[in-house]
């Protein structure tokens, strides 16, 4: 009987603590994308890269939790759904990625934080302007 009471108390404590623990976690709210190198841009609704060219971007996750931001040790990763349109690979520097326009068209980049898929980015590979 005593053991049952102890178990009940532990469960109740866990239930109470769960929301508190969740409150200590960053809450994914998109990413900040900075173009560091190359001819690319972030339009209001998508990333644009020129066909045949490569850009380097820095990507950092944003948290909507006002009490908890993402930290340096939170690992972000990007994966393109269609590598024949957009090639995506990490650069040597942390949080930096190379995006390369392999072929004209649109695709989606999956955003993973600490291995979990948290969101996505629309991307388009656009034609080179004639010189």
């Amino acid at each position, binding site marked *: 009987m005593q053991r049952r009471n102890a178990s009940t108390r532990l469960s109740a404590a866990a239930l109470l603590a769960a929301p508190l623990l969740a409150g200590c976690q960053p809450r994914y709210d998109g990413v900040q994308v900075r173009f560091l*190198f*190359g001819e690319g841009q972030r339009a209001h609704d998508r990333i644009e890269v020129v*066909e*045949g*060219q*490569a850009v*380097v971007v820095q990507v950092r996750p944003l948290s909507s939790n006002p009490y908890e931001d993402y930290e340096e040790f939170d690992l972000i990763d990007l994966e393109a759904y269609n*590598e*024949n349109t957009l*090639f995506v*690979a*990490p*650069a*040597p*520097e*942390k949080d930096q990625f*190379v995006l*390369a*326009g*392999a*072929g004209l068209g649109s695709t989606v980049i999956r955003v993973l934080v600490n291995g979990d898929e948290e969101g996505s980015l629309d991307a388009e590979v656009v034609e*080179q302007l004639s*010189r």
Partner: protein
Amino acid sequence: MREWLAPLALTLVGCASTCGDSSNPGAIGELGNGNFLYECGGSSDPVCEFNEFGENFPECIAVGGQFDLEYRLLEGDALGGGLELDPLLYIESVSQSFFEGVDEFQAQREGKAAFIVREDEHVLDIIHMQIVAIDDFEIVDRDPATPTAAIEVALGTTETFRVFPRSFACAQLGGAVPIVAESSDPAVVTVSAGDILRVQAQGPGEAVVRVRLGELEKAIDVVVGDGPIEPGSGSGSDGSGSDTDGSGSDTAGSDTAGSGSDTGGGSSSGGSTTGGT
């Protein structure tokens, strides 16, 4: 992209055997982690006009031009961060519609396109290269290396020529563009082309050899005598000289379809490519 980019493997510690011999300093990658080295696509690559290994990294590549790239990481821990690298590096063209190929590359259309260097996971470096259309070409005798428009060949001998693409838009052009040639009279001369142009005398007479580089075309007037070529009488198989004035490569009658160019003023790269030793 990984499927169609069967990669060119390079080791971290070395590259092709020509690396050590090359005086070509290469070009620093745009991420600053290493050096891209250019390898000529053949004897008719303008980068190697004066030197087997070339002396410059080209500013641009001719449409249709073939070439190869190698990469060497900078010495020391240039990458920092203790990144553990796979010992095999690969150079890949970002877009096959601009630079086609995996082992060596061929420029397909005008524009600017990138190559990336990657190991298993990371992209270590990038280089963009401009691709330009050729607007002229020169048919150059072997020795002395002068532009040629008319030759005399002794019966039974073979003359060889290099055919360099030129672009007025780019002084330091790279890429060996495959040569196509045909003889107006195979009974007088036969031709073979590809990397270099070979003209073989078959019988006495006169013929015209039409040479095409991409969409451009030029003609060489060929005279095959039935005896030995006298020294000084022309550019015979003994390589004694060219009977052109050296000022240009167009013959008066040669049609340059689509080019309309006349190299009478000199080639765009003759002086601008760093002179050979």
